[in-house]
């Protein structure tokens, strides 16, 4: 399998990966290489600020297209700050739940609001 390293600093043009647009662009880039069966490495070197918004768009969105075993085989990260690794784990867990929960949406809404 061919390997492609994507430099996040280069994608966002700086030290802050914070916007949905930049996340979306990264999602498109990752998808393009995964579509060609590349092994993709996301290099977060010199990224100092990271938001859930960016990662939801870049990484969370992938779970609508690919399943977990596929992504585990094809995707990895490097140079994430320790606290950002914790955020990444939360984003992944949330994405898996989000796409699963879409089916249970009506039940959740009933539980939350039907006593109103």
């Amino acid at each position, binding site marked *: 399998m061919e390997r492609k390293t994507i430099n996040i600093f280069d994608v966002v043009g700086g030290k802050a990966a914070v916007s949905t647009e930049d996340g979306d662009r990264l999602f498109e880039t990752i998808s393009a290489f995964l579509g060609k069966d590349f092994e993709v490495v996301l290099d977060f070197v010199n990224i100092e600020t990271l938001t859930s918004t960016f990662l939801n*768009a870049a990484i969370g969105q992938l*779970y609508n297209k690919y399943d977990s075993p596929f992504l585990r085989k094809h995707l990895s990260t490097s140079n994430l700050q320790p*606290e950002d690794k914790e955020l990444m784990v939360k984003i992944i867990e*949330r994405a898996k739940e989000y796409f699963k*929960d879409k089916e249970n949406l009506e039940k959740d809404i009933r539980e939350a609001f039907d006593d109103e």
Partner: protein
Amino acid sequence: MLTIQLPHTIDSDQQGFASLANIYQQVKPCQFETIQLDFQNTTWFDANMLAMLGAIMESAWTNDFDIVNLRPEQEKIFKKTRYSYFGGESLPDSYQTTVEYRKSKVSEIGSFEKYLEKKLLAHSKMPSMSALLRKKIKESILEIFNNARTHGKCKFVFSCGQYYPQKGRLDFTIVDIGNTIRKNVRDYSGRKVSGKKAIEWAVRENTTTRKDNIPGGLGFTLIRDFLRKNKGKIQITSADGYWFEKNDKSVSKKLDVFFKGTAVNLEFNINDTSSYCLSSEIEDMDIAF
């Protein structure tokens, strides 16, 4: 001409938000009028709350606003923040207790991030906080900015901050005049949810009104987790709801006045000496996609 008397004090609390929402209600029907904001009785106005006053004045932009009877010490503080009413006129902030007022286009999160870096985190009066605490403060504010953009569907975000060095806290307020949390939750759920209940739901872990292919529902959770450790406080006012959390205790209330927008106040404990060490180091290879 409409004259509005401001109250005795505007603090960063439920009463302060309600007083400003009340001004919003009074200016909302006005068009092409002169509106006088009379500060005669006002002895204190938390500088960070200028974010909400600025948003309200912007929402009624067809009118002419006159700020009158502002006490000299108040005017100084307003000018130190470069409050836009004074046309960007500024005064030196020798004690550096304010964080500049700013009206940001929602599309310009990059320049908002630089503003936070320059005007907030590089502030000379900020205590020597750990790099991680600074990063967490900045990321929390950016999460709120993104919320305003994604959910408020507004054009601008208004922000302003104030340091209270003796109390060891920094208050930073972010306001948008866009879709309220109540409207978003009502549209999403198809239920006539109250403003109070809508905020309670929105701040819960893993809830989001998004229905597209980008997951959401983590922003408030991350901020709440951080502020609990930091011993800070978060307050939200939107539609007819008010909610706050401090010291693990959250309280929600109905506001008697309606505010067509969302105001979030984040209060950070800047003397926080927590190391924010993680319980266990995660290796890159351990991230299980």
